[in-house]
């Protein structure tokens, strides 16, 4: 069923028309379809497992071995931003299929590249081709989940986006065990890439087959949009992706996401050396094993925050939730800065809080967009918002690493290496807090009159209900 105002796509298994749910379809089959994609593409965060084997077998530098991952993240942002309208037009099955083909082909090209000693093929394969799969896959289920769960959009997208965090948890030990079995030479790495490409294609295919869009006008039983729009920011109107980026609300939310991610990723990227440096001058320094455990704890907090805080936002509202992420996040950073190396449990608890807010910020963003701009092109708008992630991914590590290096050169040790970074993060979170406060309902001149009217007609003309 094509969206109002959009051209219908040709027939075929991948077309939107073929994915309209039959009357007996349960909406609870859609989250596992979304998870099969997000759990797969979340593998990107486990790329570091391949770095050392690639460096030793192909004689690469650390910078060179990071290239496929870096290009992959850049392509994620670009393909999500520019591919969003195509995803909206062609539907989730088409998007998941394209994601599956690209991500899997990326691994297969990488396998060929390693086997033949052509490292550029790994960069192009995993980074460029696979990166397109990352971006299209990331946004593929967002719009569909919003339409199935208009009553609980935060929870629905929280489940999917939690999967992206969970993907690295699966891939990291799985890839490590596979390299141990096949070997860390070129043959072993190539075989590992080959198996990844095939297994991930099979795993994602479940999502391709299972995903469905609701019939036009479908609403959950007993739920009415007008009744649910109790918060001032929740709209029943729709805004196109083209118009959304012309609104101040989009750019305020862009700043909110960018600075919330910057604050979290600064810790996440340097977690292990950071905790060791912080307590290096104390009676109880942190061992390498304990630092690895700290990284694992942060991963858990990041993942849990995505579902817990995003679901909470359905109850307290999106604006209030971001007040917590940014306001409490700033206070947690301030606590770390003031406590220094006096208590390691204070440091750990605050870092866990910050990382849960980092994950929550990602997972709540689609629901915030839906509140502000409606479900019409929310996937495409989300794709454009993800450019904030691309900038934050560079900004956060740059701030923390550059300042830590300069402080070390100045002869400082312990918490002094990071104190300046912590205060910068607090300032960024405060700016994000102010940007969130500036978000108001979108002016009606940006609304899509045809879509709003079509939606009302559909709602009247068709039956409602569902689980």
């Amino acid at each position, binding site marked *: 069923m094509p969206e109002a105002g959009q051209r219908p796509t040709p027939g075929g298994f991948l077309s939107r028309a073929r994915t309209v749910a039959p009357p007996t379809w349960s909406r609870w089959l859609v989250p596992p379809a979304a998870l099969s994609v997000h759990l797969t593409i979340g593998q990107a965060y486990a790329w570091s497992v391949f770095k050392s084997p690639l460096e030793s077998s192909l004689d690469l530098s650390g910078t060179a071995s990071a290239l496929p991952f870096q290009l992959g993240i850049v392509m994620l942002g670009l393909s999500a931003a520019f591919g969003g309208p195509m995803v909206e037009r062609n539907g989730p099955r088409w998007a998941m299929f394209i994601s599956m083909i690209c991500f899997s082909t990326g691994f297969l090209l990488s396998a060929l590249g390693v086997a033949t000693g052509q490292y550029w093929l790994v960069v192009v394969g995993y980074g460029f081709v696979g990166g397109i799969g990352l971006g299209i896959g990331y946004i593929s289920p967002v719009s569909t989940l919003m339409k199935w769960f208009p009553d609980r959009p935060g929870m629905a997208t929280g489940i999917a986006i939690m999967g992206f965090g969970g993907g690295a948890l699966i891939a990291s030990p*799985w890839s490590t065990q596979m390299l141990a079995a096949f070997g860390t030479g070129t043959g072993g790495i190539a075989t590992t890439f080959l198996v990844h490409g095939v297994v991930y294609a099979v795993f994602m295919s479940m999502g391709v087959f299972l995903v469905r869009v609701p019939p036009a006008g479908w609403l959950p039983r007993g739920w009415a949009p007008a009744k649910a729009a109790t918060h001032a920011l929740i709209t029943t109107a729709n805004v196109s992706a083209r118009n959304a980026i012309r609104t101040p609300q989009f750019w305020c939310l862009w700043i909110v996401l960018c600075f919330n991610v910057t604050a979290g990723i600064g810790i996440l990227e340097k977690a292990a050396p950071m905790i060791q440096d912080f307590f290096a001058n104390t009676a109880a320094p942190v*061992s390498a094993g304990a630092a690895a*455990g700290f990284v694992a704890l942060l991963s858990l907090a990041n993942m849990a925050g995505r579902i817990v805080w995003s679901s909470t936002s359905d109850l307290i509202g999106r604006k209030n939730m971001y007040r917590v992420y940014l306001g409490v996040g700033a206070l947690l950073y301030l606590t770390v800065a003031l406590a220094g190396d006096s208590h390691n449990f204070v440091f750990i608890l605050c870092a866990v809080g910050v990382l849960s807010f980092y994950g929550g910020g990602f997972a709540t963003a689609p629901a915030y967009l839906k509140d502000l701009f409606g479900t019409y092109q929310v996937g495409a708008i989300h794709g454009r918002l993800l450019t904030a992630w691309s900038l934050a991914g560079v900004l956060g590590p740059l701030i923390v690493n550059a300042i830590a290096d300069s402080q070390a050169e100045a002869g400082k040790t312990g918490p002094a290496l990071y104190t300046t970074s912590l205060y910068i993060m607090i300032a960024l979170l405060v700016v994000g807090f102010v940007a969130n406060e500036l978000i108001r309902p979108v002016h009606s001149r940006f609304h899509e009159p045809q879509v709003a009217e079509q939606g009302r007609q559909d709602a009247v003309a068709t039956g409602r209900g569902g689980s």
Partner: protein
Amino acid sequence: MTKHGRTAPSVPLMIVAWAWVALPFAYGVYELLLKLTQLFGG
């Protein structure tokens, strides 16, 4: 999702779909918990 607003999902399909994603996820969480013990035990 009938005209009365009820759904009649296929239970086996529901179980297979959720198990398909839950089992690998459980494996990942288990491996993470093994690492986590190093923070508090090591």
